[in-house]
């Protein structure tokens, strides 16, 4: 395993991202634009949940980070489909880079995007939305890291399961709505219908939301449980990828 070759793949993907950065920027701008509209409703919901003194930012900032974080799953897939569409995948495979180096390199850039996205949303959450982290920033970062890892490994699993970029987009779009909804990211958990509350704990985004809220509110709740669940889901995604990913499969990318 060569760090130099992994770094080369990451640098190349970052250059490609920089050359067409608008979609990545939108994943940060869109949640920032939505937050002020949703904050008042979330303020009421948090008071109903019993969080006296909450401003609504405690729900809207992590909620939007989770909702728009799901698009990074698609970005991981896009990184692979793009190579197929540009006919560079075969060249990459014929280069001295090993399969492991290619996979890690291709996942690293979306992971860096996740770090940037979460960093900006939570960083600006204070000055723009009045987010006050009463618990621990360290715990918040740990939840963000575990959720980011879950997103990129899921991206790899989606790539393994889908043959075309259109299939991957469909999976990401359905997954984004379903998992964000069930997480309590779009509507606070306490306001979800009973059936949705019952199945929420089986989706990873629920644990991301719980982890973020525990880190923000403090109140003695630990983030260890949510982080472990997120890591467990990440391992599951890696297993799916290991079983189904065929490095020499032909993928159809429309880029």
């Amino acid at each position, binding site marked *: 395993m*060569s760090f*130099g*070759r992994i*770094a*080369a*793949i990451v*640098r*190349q993907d970052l*250059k*490609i991202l920089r*050359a*067409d950065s608008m979609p990545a920027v939108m994943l940060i701008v869109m949640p920032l634009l939505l937050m002020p509209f949703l904050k008042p409703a979330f303020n009421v919901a948090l008071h109903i949940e019993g969080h006296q003194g909450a401003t609504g930012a405690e729900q809207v900032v992590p909620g939007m980070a989770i909702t728009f974080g799901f698009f990074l799953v698609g970005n991981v897939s896009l990184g692979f489909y793009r190579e197929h569409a*540009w*006919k*560079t*995948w*075969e*060249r*990459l*495979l*014929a*280069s*001295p*880079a*090993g399969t492991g180096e290619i996979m890690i390199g291709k996942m690293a850039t979306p992971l860096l995007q996740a770090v940037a996205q979460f960093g900006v949303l939570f960083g600006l959450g204070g000055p723009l939305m009045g987010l006050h982290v009463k618990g621990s920033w360290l715990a918040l970062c740990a939840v963000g890291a575990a959720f980011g890892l879950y997103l990129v490994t899921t991206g790899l699993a989606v790539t393994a399961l889908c043959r075309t970029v259109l299939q991957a987009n469909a999976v990401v779009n359905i997954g984004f709505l379903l998992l964000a909804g069930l997480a309590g990211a779009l509507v606070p958990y306490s306001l979800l219908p009973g059936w949705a509350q019952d199945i929420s704990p089986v989706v990873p985004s629920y644990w991301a939301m719980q982890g973020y809220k525990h880190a923000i509110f403090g109140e003695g709740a630990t983030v260890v449980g949510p982080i472990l669940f997120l890591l467990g889901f990440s391992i599951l995604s890696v297993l799916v990828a290991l079983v189904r990913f065929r490095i*020499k499969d032909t993928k159809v990318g429309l880029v």
Partner: protein
Amino acid sequence: MTGTGNTNVTVHPSDDICLGIRGVHKSYDTVQALSDIDLDVRGGEIVALLGPNGAGKTTLVSIIAGLRKPDRGHVWVNGIDVASRPQIARRQLGLAPQETGIYPTVSVRDNLRFFGELAGLRRQCLRTRITEVAEAFSLTALLDRKGQNLSGGEARRLHTAMIVLHSPSLLLLDEPTTGVDVQTRNRLLELVRCLAEEGSAVIYSTHYLPEVEQLDVSTVAILVDGKIIASGSLAHLISTLGSASVELRFSGRPPELYLPDGTVPVGNDALRVPAKDSPAVTAASLLQRLDGAGGELREIKLLQPSLESVFLAITSNTPSGSEGSP
């Protein structure tokens, strides 16, 4: 180079052989893509791989590059077994696949840099090689241009340039001149010759027979239905398998005539007739037969033995060979 076809040897190739292939078989479901391929290529040699569509050329190139595994047999690059140590073997080779593959949204320089970095080049050494390769491939003025803004020929030059940065001892070029103009084709052929002169072994798969003559290849290997059915130097193949012929071109469809065995249609308006004696004698005999047979003869060509005649003679005797072009 040798391409013996049916030798059952599994010995490790000797040190001076850059590429050694022994008994390679490959099939896809029920289709036999490659059968009993043996080939040795030394540094500085250019081996032209010819064959009709579907003959197995690309499969063979992919196996050499470690992209596919043979069902049986072995491939060594500089003594390194490609199947068991693909990553190390790939450091010794450069593959330019059939389809142009470049990163369109980054610059020519970044395309070159990326593959240089993957090959282990760093800092000043990498910068120097980018400058040298760009110069050699006439890309210097385009270094800061994005891939998507290159012409087809420029993109094809970049596509090939990306594999030579680390000076590989084996170059695998799969139809490198597909879709390029005459100038780019000539430039690429000149570069391939230079790389071979510098000591690289070259596997050159192509559909264009004149390129093989222009490249001054060491060996021609003709692949049909997954088997090397003829190999040797160009001069040897032409002298042993080539035949002279006469080409008759008409205004419209050729008339119905009794013609010697081996006569083949060329397009809709021409016939190529093998010349058993000299082409001139055959032409005179044909003109006599044409007299009164109808059809308006537009052109008559006397063709000396050539690689094309070798190729047609070999491939027209095989089921799939008669369908494809070289």
